[in-house]
């Protein structure tokens, strides 16, 4: 149990171990730990920033969505208005066209009727003359009684 040379041997071993530890063990491990701590700290900061960015982007997206909705509603409103307007115009135009066509048809019908009546009157006059001729048998001079005939035609 007495102190002896072992003390010296252990002292040397102690010094060697401490020096080795100081040179080759502690610095790499300590550096690795510190580097990782920095990495994690950086990562946390980045994630915080990303979170903020995300919130910002979400707000922006929400705003844009709202704008887009408003715009779409406006466009639809305009389109509806225009549709109604176009419909009105088309109805007005069509009704004018119809009136036009109706009026034209009436005029044509009137003209045709007039023409037909004229023809009919002439034919009746001719028939009446022919009948009268048959009845009177030469008693009537066509030329002398032309005024009578004319009068007759007029009356028909």
């Amino acid at each position, binding site marked *: *149990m007495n*102190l*002896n*040379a*072992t*003390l*010296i*041997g*252990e*002292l040397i*071993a*102690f*010094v060697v*171990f*401490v020096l*080795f*530890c*100081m040179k*080759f*063990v*502690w610095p*790499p*491990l*300590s*550096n*690795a*730990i510190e*580097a*990782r701590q920095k*990495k994690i700290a950086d990562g946390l900061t980045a994630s915080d920033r990303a979170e903020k960015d995300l919130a910002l982007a979400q707000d922006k997206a929400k705003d844009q969505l709202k704008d887009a909705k408003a715009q779409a509603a406006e466009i639809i409103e305009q389109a509806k208005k225009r549709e109604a307007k176009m419909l009105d115009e088309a109805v007005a135009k069509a009704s004018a066209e119809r009136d036009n066509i109706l009026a034209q048809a009436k005029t044509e019908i009137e003209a045709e009727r007039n023409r037909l009546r004229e023809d009919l009157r002439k034919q009746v006059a001719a028939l009446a003359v022919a009948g009268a001729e048959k009845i009177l048998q030469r008693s009537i001079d066509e030329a002398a009684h032309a005024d009578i005939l004319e009068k007759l035609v007029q009356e028909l």
Partner: protein
Amino acid sequence: MAAGEELTLSSHIQHHLTNAKMCTVDGSVAFNKACSEAGFWTWHIDTLAWSIGLGLLFILLFRSAAKKATTGVPGKFQCFVEMVIEFVAANVKDTYHGKSKLIAPLALTIFVWIFLMNLMDLVPVDFLPAFAGWVGATFFGMDSHDVYMKIVPTTDINMTAALALGVFLLMIGYSIRIKGVVGFIKELTLHPFSTKNVPLQIVLIPFNLLLELIALVAKPFSLALRLFGNLYAGEMIFILIGAIGLLQLPLHFVWAVFHILVIVLQAFVFMMLTIVYLSMASSDNH
């Protein structure tokens, strides 16, 4: 152990508490009992072998972790090593406020090395000495009673004294480096009794010197003896328990569980006190 020989309890205990010695007698290497007259130049080869072996184990394990150290995701072993490193670094940071590249690795070496050496206490006391005796008797033709093997280096006062002496030298070195030789001498002579009266102060110097020297020297002594005493006593209890037959099993278990605490605590205390002493040596205000 050789059959047919009477083994008394005290000789059994004595055998367990004796180191394997090596020395030179008349120019040739001698062992154990032949070394009883060798005096200081005796080497405890079991203490040396186990302590240096365990020191190498510590160095190699931690060096392999340091070599493979990655700043990315660490492996399990690296995690464990980093846990130890951070534990030591936190204690150093809390206690030692100067800047030193030595303190932290010193504390780490002390903690892990002493822990490993103390841990040998948990190996059942008869295993390795009996194995060493068998090897000595079988391969070297020695009497197995003359083969000694003390496997816990910290139960050897030489081991703990060497650690304490190393710390003591560092304390003096730090004192001189921080305060200068004059500052160190002033610290030893002008406290705790100080006065502005110069002749009176001169009279007080011897008392101050005596007190301060005692305080200074008490530190390494307390370091060495605390560790040695705790582990020696623990080892002694293990040996006594090991000598009482079958009943030793539950007793041994209980004492071993309790001793786990002692093992870690003594390693931690030695490390903490080393840091505290070096912190005191480095601080200017007395």
